[in-house]
């Protein structure tokens, strides 16, 4: 009985059917059949595919999350693969922005892979769609992910690469996107960072640079909402508190390095860090590792 229920919420779409997405019937190597949970982007709805490394840094995930959030707020659908790291962060950002998000899986749509993303899986189903070209119960095999990448790029109008290593599966998606004539954006990074080397290579090869959500919004001729600046609030901080806030980076820093940098007494550092955390200016990533946190968006 339960099995039946699961299957009832899943729709099978064939190319001759009316609601088979046009975007996907137009691409080369178009899928023969699609399985869908939830719904698909409407015709004319802007979509952005946000992709990147599974083992992304805190910074990378933050960027993915905040850009996805800003875009989703403007009604742009966020497409990704529901993998660990950047993919999950992009979906989360879209859900935070109360927008729509679509996940293309490399296994049957009834399987949540990776399994610890089950909460995300449930939320995406309610606020978008989960899509796969593989029959129900198909296991997540490596070659599936290579093939499903063409669907991610096919569903998206624009592809944004947030973090990628020199050798990365992300490039498969980018290649497919270029074949399909989509615009590719990449977030630049420091040349020494392992996880930014792929993005920097894309930029060298001609991808557009994305340094804020506005870059993508202006591609769609949309305007970003002006967000409140935090500058004023920070100005009103006591001197030490401001110094601590400014010393915090987007990558987590250990308590001890902060202490050595600022030369503040231990108790004061503990006090202000907790205060900043309570007020939402910083977060404790792991015991003793702190990083700056954006309350609204990354770029203000």
């Amino acid at each position, binding site marked *: 009985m339960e099995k039946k229920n699961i299957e009832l919420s899943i729709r099978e779409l064939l190319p001759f059917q009316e609601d088979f997405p046009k975007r996907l019937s137009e691409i080369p190597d178009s899928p023969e059949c699609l399985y869908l949970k939830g719904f698909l982007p409407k015709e004319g709805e802007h979509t952005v595919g946000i992709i990147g490394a599974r083992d992304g840094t*805190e910074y990378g995930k933050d960027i993915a999350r905040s850009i996805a959030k800003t875009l989703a707020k403007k009604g742009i659908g966020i497409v990704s693969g529901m993998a660990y790291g950047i993919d999950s962060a992009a979906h989360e950002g879209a859900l935070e922005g109360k927008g729509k998000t679509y996940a293309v899986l490399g296994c049957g749509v009834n399987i949540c892979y990776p399994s610890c993303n089950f909460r995300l899986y449930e939320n995406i189903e309610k606020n978008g769609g989960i899509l796969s070209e593989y029959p129900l119960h198909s296991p997540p095999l490596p070659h599936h992910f290579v093939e499903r990448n063409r669907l991610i790029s096919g569903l998206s109008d624009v592809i944004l690469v947030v973090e990628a290593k020199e050798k990365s599966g992300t490039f498969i998606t980018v290649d497919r996107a270029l074949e399909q004539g989509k615009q590719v954006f990449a977030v630049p990074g420091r040349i020494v960072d392992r996880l930014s080397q792929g993005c920097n290579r894309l930029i060298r090869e001609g991808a557009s640079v994305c340094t804020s959500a506005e870059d993508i919004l202006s591609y769609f001729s949309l305007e970003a909402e002006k967000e409140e600046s935090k500058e004023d609030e920070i100005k009103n901080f006591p001197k030490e508190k401001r110094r601590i806030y400014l010393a915090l980076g987007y990558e987590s820093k250990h308590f001890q390095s902060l202490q050595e940098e600022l030369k503040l007494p*231990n108790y004061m550092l503990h006090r202000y860090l907790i205060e900043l955390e*309570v007020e939402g200016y910083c977060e404790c*990533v792991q*015991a*003793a*590792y702190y990083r700056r946190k954006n309350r609204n968006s990354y770029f203000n």
Partner: protein
Amino acid sequence: MLSKVYSAAIHGLNAYVVSVQVDESNGLPRSMTLGNVSASVKEAIERVSIALKNLGLELPPKKITINLQPADLRKNGSSFDLPIFMGTLLALYPSCDFPYENYGFLGELGLDGEIRPVSGVLPMVLALEEAGMEGVFVSKDNEREARNSEKLKVISCSHITELLDICKIPYGKKEKRKNIGAGPSVGSNDESYANGNEEDQNLDFQDVLGQSYGVRAALIAAAGHHALLFSGPAGSGKTMIAKRIPGILPKMSKQEKLELTKIYSIASCLPSEKGLIEKRPFRAPHSAVSQNTLLGGMSSGRLIPGELALAGKGVLFLDELPLFKKESIEALRGPMEEKRVTLHRLQQFFSYPVDCLFVAAMNPCPCGYFPDRNRCHCTPGQIRAYQRGISKPILERMDLCVSLPSITLQDALTKEKGISSAVLRKQVEKARKMQERRFFQEEKIRWNGDMNVRAVNEYCELGKEEAEYMENIFKLKNLSMRTYHKILKLARTIADLEEEEKINMNHLAEAVSYRGLEEVLFSFEG
């Protein structure tokens, strides 16, 4: 003729006095040992008769019956050789001069008459002392250990001929005595024996460079007796800090030293040149350790103290916590909570207190660099599988969860020396004094780390402002009640270190920062 001498036997981690009765009567020649004895005790009479023969004294062809009282407790080991020898001698020569009726005898015999050391001498000597004996005979190697007794007169011999001389029993082959040394020595029980090399502390916190955060955590753990977990990349100094913790705990009292030495003596871990364990122990069992080795197990009818007992009053360090066998770690849950181990082995119950400081260390992931994603290449699956090695209940019993940053060579070269252990120990002593005053009427609670919920509510009272502050943090971090109590306990210790009677916001803020590892470790669960 019937004779009677005294000895002692080990039961669990304690000893009791055994009286050895030897009867020699007419009948078919045979010997028999009674009193619930193991094979090793039964062998004793054989060693005795051959040792006698080798001295030119033959055991007459008579019926010899040996009884060890109390007869219901199991007796084991070779320490009954000497009392059985003495009893047999007295049974054979009832007219000999024997002024040592109220003396205990402990030792093993060789076939040539040599007296060899045995394990468990200290608890046995203390049992004899308690029973009102006057003195004890031990082997030369056990002398230092036996001298810990304040009342007993300790006579050490290395060969049975010395005993024969004392009892004025003539024997034949004098020329066989070789290399025996100075003969029996009767010494006063002064301290000079026990006080070996006093300042042998090579491990000092001064050598720990650039880990002020970890050292601070170690100080708090030592001051309040809190269980401590280090997480950090390889080479960040987790083991280095842990090894130095025994050095900052207050010096042990005589009573504590005796208790500890008793356990080491039973476990045969006491070096013979040492009569007393002077330094607080640091035990670091390997991750392949079994449950029995940790808690204590049975071997040939005797309780072998586990690592938990051997680490008593010192530090039990579990390096690479996720690699330990699950059942070994889970077995620690009860003892950590109850501060006591109860073992049920061979129809007997044994129980001993657990008073060691738990220190554990782990890498955050198989490569050790997580959360630095530019260096850590581990997949989330690998990290999860690695961290699954630790169960949540164990993590919750760790009051301090501290992640250490990685140290670069440059850090190590440019940093000044750390705080010395002597300075830290003074702080620990001060904080512990505060706690002694606080808990003087408590039965079970000695340090802040032992506090239960009732005690936390009683002793960690917060002011109005502080309570509001905690409420804010509680909401923000989504804390469990257990974590909340842990934070209060830690804040109490931090306040004690500053000799403050009241917990203030600074103390709370610092205490809050020493948790959070459990949330990260279990964040992958979904």
